[in-house]
């Protein structure tokens, strides 16, 4: 609603259905609709094509290019160097570089911790499970956050973890979830889409990550560790608009206290006491009185 929309391009390595990408995609679509940005995107862009897509969008005059550098860290930075007038905001586990290459991470581990607190209180079998893509730091941090939350309320609980070895294979994530249920888990934390399907099939509860899975699995997913891209996008847009370098780490905006992440849960599923305790912890985090440990190591 203020002046001409900024030209923004999104480059998604996965199809935009992939939960993580869909968060970006939804935020940018919304901004587009509000007239803040003019959004174009490519999806399913392989590692080989990714740098070309970056260059093309840069040459096409986009002011900001949003994407993910994870699989192309080196090349992405070298592209940014070649186009100093374009701002890049890339998902990355690394650091920002130069004036125009900013990075962000998916830090919804605090929310995962809160979800873990509910799960720890609810498990009957004493075993909970998590299905992840690959043991990379951000996934590890998330799953560890969940596990820590579980342990915080239920030190005896067992937390089993499996990785499906790829970022996007829902039927496989479902199989992994079923395997965990077979080994005793009665609550699943689905870092990957497909996990909740296993829970649904076996009639147990599940927790989602990044997006709100509850509408999709109403009786199964009772809590979600939400992540929002909008604060990051807005900050980067502000920097671009003001002519400030975007070569910095935007990740902290993912934190709960900045509104970048939060728990979203269904009332009346978890025991009241557990919810109360969780909300207390949430308030403490918001107030900066409690810090959820950040653990990037692969969960054992």
């Amino acid at each position, binding site marked *: 609603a203020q002046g001409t929309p900024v030209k923004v391009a999104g480059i998604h390595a996965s199809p935009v259905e992939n939960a993580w990408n869909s968060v970006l995609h939804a935020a940018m679509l919304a901004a587009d609709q509000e007239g803040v940005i003019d959004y174009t995107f490519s999806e399913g862009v392989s590692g080989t094509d990714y740098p070309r897509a970056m260059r093309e969008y840069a040459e096409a005059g986009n002011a900001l290019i949003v994407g993910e550098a994870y699989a192309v860290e080196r090349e992405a930075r070298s592209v940014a160097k070649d186009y100093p007038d374009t701002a890049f905001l890339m998902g990355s586990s690394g650091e920002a570089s130069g004036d125009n290459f900013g990075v962000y991470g998916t830090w919804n581990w605090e929310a995962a911790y809160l979800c873990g607190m509910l799960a720890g209180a609810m498990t009957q079998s004493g075993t909970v499970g998590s299905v992840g893509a690959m043991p990379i730091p951000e996934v590890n941090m998330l799953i560890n956050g969940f596990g820590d939350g579980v342990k915080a309320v239920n030190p005896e609980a067992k937390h089993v973890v499996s990785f499906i070895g790829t970022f996007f294979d*829902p039927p496989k994530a479902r199989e992994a979830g079923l395997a965990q249920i077979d080994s005793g888990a009665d609550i699943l934390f689905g870092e990957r889409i497909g996990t909740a399907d296993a829970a649904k099939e076996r009639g147990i509860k599940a927790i989602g990550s990044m997006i709100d899975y509850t509408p999709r699995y109403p009786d199964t997913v009772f809590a979600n560790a939400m992540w929002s891209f909008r604060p990051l996008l807005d900050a980067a847009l502000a920097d671009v608009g003001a002519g400030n370098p975007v070569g910095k780490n935007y990740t902290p905006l993912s934190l709960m206290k900045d509104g970048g992440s939060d728990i979203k849960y269904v009332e009346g599923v978890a025991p009241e006491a557990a919810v109360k305790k969780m909300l207390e912890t949430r308030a403490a985090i918001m107030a900066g009185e409690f810090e959820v440990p950040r653990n990037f190591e692969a969960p054992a």
Partner: protein
Amino acid sequence: MSILLDILGSVGLWEAVLRIATPLVFGTLGVLLCERAGVLNLGIEGIMTFGAMLGWLTVHGGGDLWLGMLAAAAGGALFGLLHGLMTVVLGLSQHVTGLGITLFASSFAYYVFRLAVPTSSSPPTVTPFAPWPVPGLSQIPFLGPVLFDQTPPTYLALVLVAVLGWVLFRTPLGLAIRMAGENPHALDAQGIDPIRLRIGAVMAGSALMGMGGAFLTLAAFNSFFPTMVQGRGWICVALVVFAVWRPGRALLGAGLFAFCDAFQLRLQTVVDGVPYQLFLMLPYVLSILALIVMARRARVPQALMQPYRRGER
């Protein structure tokens, strides 16, 4: 050790085996039928993808689940026809055409999907096939839940194994198909047109591949995603060799493959440090070993990959 035994003795594992195996069974039977008639169909990966998309789209658009399966079969048959026209009628190279069809069918499926579902952040779902316990049989301890508490397409796949076995080895049609794969000239000399027969077999085989794909979106999962076939088609090509071109053994091979996958997923939850890739390699390596063992017996369809052109020197 006892952990391993626990896993091996669990119902869940064996139930998963059959479930994971189902799309492979469809696909393997499809490849088997094509190859028995003398046509290598490397289009399978793409045809499965297309079947997965079309089956899902049909149901999403309001069709019945079985209508979805049927649509996937029809879509597969259409690509089979294309493959048949190019490789059987024109006699073009079967590998190359197959790879071309895989590329075309899968990218076309993604394209159509994206047009049908323009920008969704979370893909629309359908209500998939639910497990249907066979009355009575599903009560049998252990075997019941493993074999008789599956989704209907899984039962269909099992029935198809028997049907294809019967057709190939007990009916005149099956004999003609096998002869088309062994020596099309001989078939022609007996008054049957090998070209039409081969095209028919490729279409039927491709229809099975399409159904295998649809299983992924209508039973194993409930929505379509690009790249979701994930190499399952190639595995079927290998399984056919492992199966020595016999439907019964194709079931066995698909089961073995699914077992490796299911076991690997379960093992991960209990032990650490064994690279899962080793398990995933196992079926491929076993297939190669199987090839070595049976190579001497030369049971490969002798006219596989050889185009038939009437009256050419």
